């Protein structure tokens, strides 16, 4: 019979002290082991029995050095897997160079959740509405993954495969989020739409990163969240703008194109039609914000 669970299901807890130890746990226990950092997504899921119950929960927080947020003018920004959302939000590097990441972080959940949750966890959970994802996509971020076969780097736009599915293989973990240094004169923004003013999942999320020079769009990346099976880039809309003089008409065209590119669902949070309309509205706002102000 059914019930409403109050307690978490039974599992064992492992606290590796090094990356090697963590990887060996994953190798040994395979699907029976789940990694976690902040747990703000995983713990509620386990409580509601929404996912398979792992036999082992592997806590990464015992491994030193994984919570750093580093920036240098050449390499750009490097976010460790344990860097919390609040740490990212409060980082002067983020505020100074990546306002869209600051906006995404500020829009997520509550101070309590932001003190525990991580961007790494947010993108690995891969919900279509994940707030960090559109901003990272538009900034052309990439992730460093560490697995049984060693390291590999995957660009953000190849990272998501489907709802709650990423390219992470069995026994693989996210080691670092890399965002290249912003191009001179570039701007970026993340806009989120939801019914209330806090504590909502995005109905629509739009991120834009672009560089303009003398009224001409030199470089542009547009990303959408919550309106497709994964967070997506919309290259067709980008092409409308790239290399062209910025006018209200061209922004209009690109915004409409972005709306046409997405494939939202009808669910209890919003209808397909509303989401599509809002992609158009938010894209227009984001593009105006970055290209014209």
């Amino acid at each position: 019979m059914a019930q409403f669970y109050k307690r978490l299901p039974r599992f064992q807890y492992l606290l590796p002290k090094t990356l090697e130890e963590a990887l060996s746990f994953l190798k040994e226990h395979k699907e029976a082991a789940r990694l976690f950092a902040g747990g703000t997504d995983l713990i509620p899921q386990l409580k509601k029995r929404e996912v398979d119950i792992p036999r082992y929960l592997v806590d990464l927080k015992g491994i030193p050095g994984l919570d750093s947020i580093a920036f240098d003018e050449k390499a750009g920004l490097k976010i460790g897997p344990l860097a919390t959302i609040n740490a990212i939000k409060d980082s002067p590097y983020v505020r100074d160079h990546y306002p869209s990441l600051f906006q995404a972080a500020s829009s997520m959940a509550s101070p309590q959740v932001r003190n525990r949750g991580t961007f790494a966890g947010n993108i690995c959970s891969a919900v279509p509405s994940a707030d960090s994802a559109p901003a990272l996509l538009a900034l052309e971020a990439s992730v460093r993954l560490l697995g049984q076969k060693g390291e590999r780097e995957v660009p953000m736009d190849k990272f998501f495969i489907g709802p709650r599915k990423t390219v992470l293989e069995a026994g693989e973990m996210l080691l670092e989020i890399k965002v290249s240094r912003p191009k001179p004169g570039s701007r970026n923004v993340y806009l989120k739409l939801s019914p209330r003013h806090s504590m909502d999942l995005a109905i629509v999320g739009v991120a834009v990163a672009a560089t303009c020079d003398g009224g001409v769009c030199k470089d542009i990346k547009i990303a959408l969240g919550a309106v497709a099976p994964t967070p997506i880039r919309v290259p067709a809309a980008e092409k409308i703008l790239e290399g062209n003089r910025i006018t209200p008409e061209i922004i209009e065209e690109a915004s409409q194109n972005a709306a046409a590119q997405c494939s939202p669902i009808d669910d209890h949070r919003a209808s397909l039609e509303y989401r599509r309309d809002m992609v158009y509205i938010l894209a227009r706002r984001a593009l105006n914000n970055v290209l014209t102000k």
Partner: protein
Amino acid sequence: MEQIKLTVNGKEYELQVRPWATLLEVIRDDLGLTGAKEGCGEGECGACTVIMDGKAVNSCIVLAVEANGRQITTIEGLAEGDRLHPVQEAFLEMGGMQCGFCTPGMILSTKVLLDGNKNPTDEEIRKGLEGNFCRCTGYTKIFESVKAAAQKIRR
């Protein structure tokens, strides 16, 4: 069972806990500190808020084992004997509560907010408390309590 050491309200505890026990359950059931409440059990309402190593967290989604070695402050740790903390005094004087279920969490979030910002704007107060849900008061007297507490602390 896992062995953990917690410092709660300045006192050290050595406990045996189940790996799947939450910090909230251990604080309430093992330590008898029932000020932290379970409102939603999934980190949405903030009724379970405690301060862990200086930061406000939802104890209902923190495993007890994750709190091993950490410093926890619960609502019971704010007053010094009979002397209330300025935030508690402010909530009492301004009437920043009705049923009181959200109050421990609300007071701790307020304390953390004011620890970091002695003169928050209205906007900063609202945003600082967005993780603490209240159904009774409409938040108005809670905001007034926060401002009164800030004034007390600044003095």
